[in-house]
């Protein structure tokens, strides 16, 4: 635990870490609790967390759970944090900003230094949502960009199996001045032996029983041990693959905002919808017909009819080409035979499922089904 923690600190550019959170959202909640306790201890009366409108839904949800008012700011024409909007939103109540960089559009926040200054000038803290760390390892450390707290998704960036939705692990790293606020215990080493340190002066308390998802932590450690400095290669190839797909599809699909992306790209099917009535949902179902898992759809919310594609470093060129072919084929189908896309999937074990019925008449166990 100690050694993984140290490696994560180096990767994140932070000084201390807790491995207790069981997932990314759990890490966010931990980070926000730390911000709250720190500001209170320092004598500030602040109750607002700023999140961009492109943020993951967990950001506002975690902030609200910790008792903060959430202030959402719009993105600028480049898809990034709008400095004017940020300046306007910041006031003496500002406790911090939650940001993922690159953001959910896959775009690097070029004004990160200015953003950091604005937040720190207002005596707020900067929180790094680690969901997109895959893009930056070996290039830039969140800590160096001005982030005070950083969470890591071991089940994303550090390759532990997803298990159909969990278990995950969401360690939170912090700069030295926040060490005493971490959930206790943390793992320390005195040169001879490793031990659990419980007496942290301002600890937010425990946020989970025991010490975190240890089984996941061990797997992530094995991965980090294996890769070492080659984690930089992971980011390089992940970014290369995403840009490859974007370049190969940009003549037929719309890519709002910047062309240069990091590890993920977001395309919009809005024009296709206007022209043919086919939606992003339809396209995602049609991808299944061709034997691939569809990407995330309708996120980020600021892109209409969004498909968010994150190929990662683990796909070969052949697989990427296969995906590109499928997307080009589906685009053709949208205009030539839209019905086949609208009624997809056709080649799966089961046809398109009625999610509205599932919500309106909930059947959540066999017991309810029998009734």
């Amino acid at each position: 635990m100690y050694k993984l923690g140290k490696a994560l600190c180096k990767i994140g550019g932070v000084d201390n870490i807790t491995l207790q959170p069981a997932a990314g959202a759990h890490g966010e909640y931990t980070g926000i609790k730390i911000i709250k306790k720190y500001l209170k201890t320092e004598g500030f009366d602040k109750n607002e967390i700023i999140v961009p409108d492109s943020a993951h839904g967990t950001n506002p949800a975690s902030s609200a759970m910790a008792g903060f008012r959430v202030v959402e700011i719009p993105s600028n024409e480049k898809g990034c944090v709008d400095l004017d909007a940020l300046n306007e939103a910041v006031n003496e109540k500002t406790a911090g900003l939650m940001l993922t960089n690159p953001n959910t559009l896959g775009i690097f926040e070029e004004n990160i230094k200015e953003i950091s200054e604005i937040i720190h000038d207002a005596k707020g803290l900067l929180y790094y949502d680690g969901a997109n760390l895959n893009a930056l390892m070996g290039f830039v450390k969140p800590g160096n960009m001005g982030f005070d707290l950083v969470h890591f998704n071991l089940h994303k960036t550090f390759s532990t199996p997803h298990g159909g939705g969990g278990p995950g692990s969401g360690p939170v790293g912090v700069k030295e001045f926040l060490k005493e606020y971490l959930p206790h215990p943390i793992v320390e080493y005195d040169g001879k032996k490793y031990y659990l340190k419980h007496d942290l002066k301002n600890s937010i308390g425990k946020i989970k029983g025991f010490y975190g998802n240890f089984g996941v932590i061990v797997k992530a450690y094995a991965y980090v041990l294996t890769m070492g400095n080659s984690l930089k290669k992971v980011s390089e190839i992940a970014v290369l693959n995403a840009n490859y797909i974007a370049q190969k599809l940009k003549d037929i699909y719309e890519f709002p905002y910047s062309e240069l992306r990091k590890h993920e790209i977001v395309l919009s099917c809005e024009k296709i919808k206007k022209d043919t009535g086919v939606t992003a949902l339809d396209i995602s179902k049609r991808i299944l017909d061709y034997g691939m898992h569809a990407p995330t759809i309708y996120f980020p919310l600021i892109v209409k009819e969004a498909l968010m594609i994150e190929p990662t470093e683990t796909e070969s060129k052949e697989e990427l080409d296969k995906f590109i072919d499928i997307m080009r084929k589906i685009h053709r189908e949208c205009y030539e035979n839209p019905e086949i896309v609208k009624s997809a999937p056709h080649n799966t074990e089961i046809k398109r499922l009625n999610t509205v019925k599932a919500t309106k008449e909930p059947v959540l166990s066999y017991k309810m089904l029998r009734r």
Partner: protein
Amino acid sequence: MRYIPDSCEDEILKEINFTKEKLFSDIPEDLRSDLDLWDEKSEMEVKRELKNILDKNRVILNFLGAGVYNHYIPSAVKEIVRRSEFYSCYTPYQPEVSQGMLQALFEYQSLMAELLDMDVVNSSMYDWATSLAEAALMCYRVKKKPKFIISKNIHPERREVLKTYTEGILEIVEMEYNEKGIDLEDLKKNIDNSCGVYIENPTFLGYFEHNLEEIGEIVHKNDALLVAGVDPISLGIIKPPGEYADIAIGESVGYPVSFGGPLLGIFGVRNDMSLIRKMPGRLIGVTEDLEGNSGFVMTLQTREQHIRREKATSNICSNEALCAVASAVYLSFLGKKGLKELAELCMKNSNYTMKRINEIKGFKAPLFNSPHFKEFTVYHKNIREIDRKLLKKDIQGGVVLERIGFDLKDTALYCVTEVHSKEDINRLISILEVI
């Protein structure tokens, strides 16, 4: 390059007319820095390094419980859970190609619902402690009253996680307890203005709660919700929480102890839409496809963060899905009869051990005169010394309660389950007799 396929990097760059530099040209030069870790290691080196750490472990007979329990896991459970369709699959966002995972999670929800006698169980929380914290927040959402009542007889870590989550939102009021469970007079005195009450059965100290019906009456008469924390295995022989509580939580079974994680927090409620719509966590439901075939989907997602954002019932998304699959497989193997036999065996082994320890001079077991399930208290005036001596003989005794912050002097909490053979128990006794 490990874990990265031959990526034909140069070919790709050429094809899209990019350079490596261009890919990262948006990151300001003055912010950049290298990793400073180590060179790649081979699988053999990594295994050696991990084995060196593992070899420092001693596998010894242990009587630890207090939140995570040693139960035998049939090999078939591991075999099924390790299938890649479960082990490495993504969250089932595309139900048409995820029916297997969705059904497995639905089976978990259903089996647990039967066992708890509840109707709706979500597909998992992080662990028991976070289930409790989220249950308290849910009581507040439903009842909008400022107090939440717990017994002093719960795991200190659970209490602490609860306090972290509810700080600034709810006042946590702790009730006294006695050999029958939570102190009813104390409860009546404090119930006013409470949104919820939390009890455990069996209690943290291992004995059964006696006054379930009275507690239910007091809580409901005061327009609060009753939250019950249970050990699913005990439900092979005792009354399920559905008969007296509104929300049932606990720690499930079927996966290893794993140093306290990953585990799985149970979270179940009655079939009452006003409760279901306020509950946290992912839910799997049944619906139909375009041709009328029934199938499984994630549902009621308007409660969740990716739709409702700051107004969501919780921020939880990733959960402990694979542990839920393990639980479903485990419970299916056991069946109704197996679960009852298992519960009886745990109770028999533990009560036998308790009786034998109580016969040894200087020991008292249990401290509370009440029927116990698989855990019980052991008093000795030098309990820490006893613990150290046992360790020298390759036995890990029960959890010394003061060590984990539970306010009971010179007492350890022993856990005995089906994994303890008669020889194991006799070995413990013979050593305690001469200590």
